[in-house]
């Protein structure tokens, strides 16, 4: 072997081993930091609802609930929008505007989360409180999710903010996937006399299903871990409420807001316990994504996505 080959192999192996070691170390440090809380509360911590630094009773229940409801809500809102954007940019838009619109949508991903959070507090939250929330309540009030709206900082605002943040992720990946559909297939379908929509439904969607699912999961991962923007708009309240117009909190936002100046070692350890739960949650989501991609790829007999 050439010296260069040996060097390349060594460097690459070192880099990948470094990444593995980093993950292991992070998990180890998180578990170690959470040990005090783990031994005090055990697994009951995961479901206990409450965060009381004065009486030293901590639990992740309400934050898990908040994390699940905000990220699922954002995913439900963002997915159809993102797929719409991707379809428009690949199949429907006139060639001249594809470039600029693609660039703009991707710029959305580059906006720092603290800027989106600030905009969320100052512009979005009052707008939603005064116009959107009451309208949703009066139209859909029979569903417990759309209860009376009084607070401007609430779970619904956080869902909208997260939707905006994960939209470019899902749409740009979907766009790449749609572009990757072989044009012979598309032209073949159109040549058989299908409409554009029938072509999209019959060729583009089945061909890219696995990839789009993976894109959704990537978006979900972003939504799960987003701390700052959510912390700024969600209203930081510990408790469980099905009304989206009440304040709430998520795992990531809770950690971001409170890790500085914990009032006891147990509180600090409990915050790290929250981080551990978030870590496990994120790893599970990632594994799920890989599983979906592999299954769909196998079913299609294509290794395309």
């Amino acid at each position: 072997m050439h010296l260069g080959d040996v060097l390349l192999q060594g460097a690459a192996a070192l880099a990948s081993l470094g990444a593995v070691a980093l993950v292991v170390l992070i998990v180890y440090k998180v578990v170690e930091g959470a040990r005090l809380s783990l031994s005090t509360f055990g697994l009951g911590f995961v479901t206990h609802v409450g965060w009381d630094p004065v009486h030293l009773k901590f639990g992740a229940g309400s934050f898990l609930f908040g994390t699940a409801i905000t990220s699922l809500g954002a995913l439900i809102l963002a997915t159809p929008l993102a797929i719409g954007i991707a379809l428009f940019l690949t199949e429907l838009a006139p060639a001249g505007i594809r470039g600029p619109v693609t660039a703009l949508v991707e710029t959305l991903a580059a906006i720092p989360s603290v800027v989106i959070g600030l905009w969320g507090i100052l512009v979005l939250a009052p707008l939603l409180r005064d116009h959107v929330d009451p309208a949703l309540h009066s139209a859909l009030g029979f569903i417990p999710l759309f209860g009376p709206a009084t607070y401007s900082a609430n779970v619904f605002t956080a869902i909208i903010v997260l939707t905006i943040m994960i939209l470019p992720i899902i749409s740009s990946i979907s766009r790449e996937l749609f572009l990757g559909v072989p044009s012979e297939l598309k032209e073949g379908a159109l040549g058989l006399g299908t409409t554009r929509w029938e072509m999209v439904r019959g060729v583009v969607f089945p061909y890219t299903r696995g990839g789009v699912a993976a894109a959704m999961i990537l978006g979900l991962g972003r939504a799960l871990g987003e701390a700052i923007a959510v912390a700024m708009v969600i209203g930081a309240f510990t408790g469980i409420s099905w009304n989206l117009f009440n304040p709430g909190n998520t795992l990531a936002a809770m950690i971001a807001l409170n890790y500085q100046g914990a009032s006891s070692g147990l509180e600090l350890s409990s915050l790290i316990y929250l981080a551990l739960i978030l870590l496990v949650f994120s790893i599970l989501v990632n594994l799920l994504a890989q599983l979906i991609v592999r299954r769909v790829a196998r079913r299609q007999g294509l290794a395309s996505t």
Partner: protein
Amino acid sequence: MPKNGMLVRITLVVAAVAILAAVAVGTAGASHKARSATAIKGAGSSFVAPLVNAWINPVSSIGISLSYNPIGSGGGVSAITTKGVDFGASDAPLSQFSPTCTTCVQIPWALAATAVVYNLPGLPFLKMNGSTLANIYLGKIKNWNDPAIKKLNSGRNLPDKAITVVHRSDSSGTTFNFTDYLSSVSKTWKSQVGNGTAVSWPTGIGGNKSAGMSAAVKSTPGAIGYVDVDYAVVNHLGYMKMRNRTGKFVVPRLKGILAAAQLQTHPAKDGSLSIVNPPKSKKYANAYPIATYTYVDVQKASGANAAALKKLIGWAITKGQTYGPKLFFAPLPKPVVTFDKKQIQKIHS
């Protein structure tokens, strides 16, 4: 290949120029620094931030370039504990935090009040007492036209409007002062919630730091919250007259703060003082019940910046106090200044 070689050469040249430039700027900066001010970095309490910001200009004349980051008391104690800053500032004593800074000296350096602010346009200076305030924050009183509030404000036209309780979402010395007060006026509060820099709030929404709290109250009609008086004034928020134990309704202004400060003028050994809710006595007839000392926390071994830090804090507790009244900070009582001077002597390089 020749193309690649060219690229490599260009990269090398650019890198060399960049390194040279960095070295040049670095040495220029260093020589410049030697002649000009010592940079002192602080972080912490957003409550005391208006006063510290007012100090930045005048201290440049004694050779200190001061910068302050209002990240909240909890953040300030964290930062000084890990030596990320030259000083931390907190409205709650160090003993309220764990982990806390065990190698720090704690110096009370300002005196002010926590205002109870609210958003009801056209109704300035509503009267409030401790038990009613506690019931609002416990979620028992939910509307502005509740009989308890009406009784305190006879003749005022209180609207039928839901109360939105706002509290701090971060670890805060203002929260400590406020819950300290609520615990002293309400047994239910004391047993159910208690006092601390962060507590388990029975109701309401959280605002991040004093600025977030002010913004939340300002943007939510019917909201109630608590911040340093200066934030209330700057943000044009109405604040309440609080009933003290002698039965008088007092605004969080200098007179009320100074009257409350008489409760304790000799700090405990660790430098802490508590002046919340003074007892019923003629001496405290004008006392505002939610007042607090606020502290600067410094590592005893402060290294190269020790001399400048001593100069800064020595200035802050004497001359610096004259910048207070405009911002609703009362000057420190003499015994506290005497104590502080001894504390400052504990700082060394």
